[in-house]
């Protein structure tokens, strides 16, 4: 069965290179990637996750608003009835924030320098479990 991943870029900045690179790497790893592009609200991200029935949600955040955005997305995911889909976050996230995000329910945080291969492997491993 194909793994379906939503790659979304919340926040108001225009730095979508990272999200695109990861989306293409996951495509090359054989996954079906739904890419929603820049400036997505938490509402539209969760709506996309619901309509596309993805296995995993990936958020790329470089604006510094990761705590606020992630808690909103987590809350909306819960309210929507989608269930416990693993959420991955990539971007510029300070280590102590990353720890807090994991505690709050974010599955994994990938910082700069993470290899694309390890992201794909982590997703595969998580979905197949």
């Amino acid at each position, binding site marked *: 069965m194909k793994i379906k991943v939503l790659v979304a870029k919340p926040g108001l900045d225009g730095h979508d290179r990272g999200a695109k690179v990861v989306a293409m790497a996951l*495509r*090359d790893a054989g996954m079906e*990637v739904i890419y*929603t592009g820049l400036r997505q609200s938490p509402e539209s991200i969760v709506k996309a996750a619901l*309509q596309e029935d993805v296995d995993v949600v990936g958020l790329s955040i470089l604006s510094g608003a990761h705590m606020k955005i992630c808690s909103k997305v987590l809350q909306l995911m819960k309210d929507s009835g989608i269930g416990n889909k693993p959420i991955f976050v990539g971007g510029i996230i300070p280590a102590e924030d990353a720890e807090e995000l994991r505690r709050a329910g974010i599955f994994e945080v990938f910082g700069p320098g993470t290899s694309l291969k390890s992201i794909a492997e982590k997703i595969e491993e998580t979905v197949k479990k």
Partner: protein
Amino acid sequence: MRFMEPKIDQLRVSKVLSIIENDTEEARRIIDELPQRDYFVIGVTGSPGAGKSSLTDRLACMSADEKSTAVVAIDPSSPFTGGAFLGDRIRMRRATDDPEIFVRSMASRGNVGGLSPSIYNTVELLGRSGYERIYVETVGAGQSETDIVNLADIVILVLAPGLGDDVQTMKAGIMEIGDIFVVNKSDLPGSDQLFSRTRAILELSGKQLPVVRTNSIKGNGIEELHKKIGAILEDHVDSGRLSEKRRKRNLYNNLNSAYQIIKEHYAENAKLEELIKYLLENIGRESK
């Protein structure tokens, strides 16, 4: 914006669509349990970058004012890795923000006709779930991706300037399947020429089909297009062409499902698979 309180249970529909994509036998069981309903399938096809997604976005929002509306947007799977990059939602900001419109992306998963293997059952499920207008956007079509004609009640062929001279529009294949021709990106240079060329070619082939100019970014021409679609569908209802299309769609669905079930469960039996594939490719050929 209202959030997640649409009339139709999108979460349920979404989960069932995943079953449909992966298990055709189970898909047929689920669909058979739901009551049949009337729905229209509007196909949108054309070259990559012609503006299919933006146009579909506009049209879907317009029909959502009157009817419950769903969109299925297909993008290609890689023949090398099986992966796919599905990017149609980016161009569908209006439709994806509308709480009532259901938008689903699908990968073509090896289908070469511009659709995806489970598209027939997908559309049937959406129809039986209560969606009355279902837009299907094909993969960016080259010249021979014409399967949409078997699925849709009406096919909108989207053209844009800058993609070749009039010899391209005379070639066999995709230019033969449009019920409405759209010259999109009407603000770009070359649009006037493309418009008159398209009309001239249609005239040459003796077809009296509408050609509409649109600009899907600004919204020009969309209302006219939407009205023309409505008029043609009404016409099809009156002339009986619609029930003929539905009968055919059903036939294709049954055959296609049989083919999928064989592929999913009996892949080692290659001869049977070939037979079904042959039937699928040749059915209804004489009547086209």
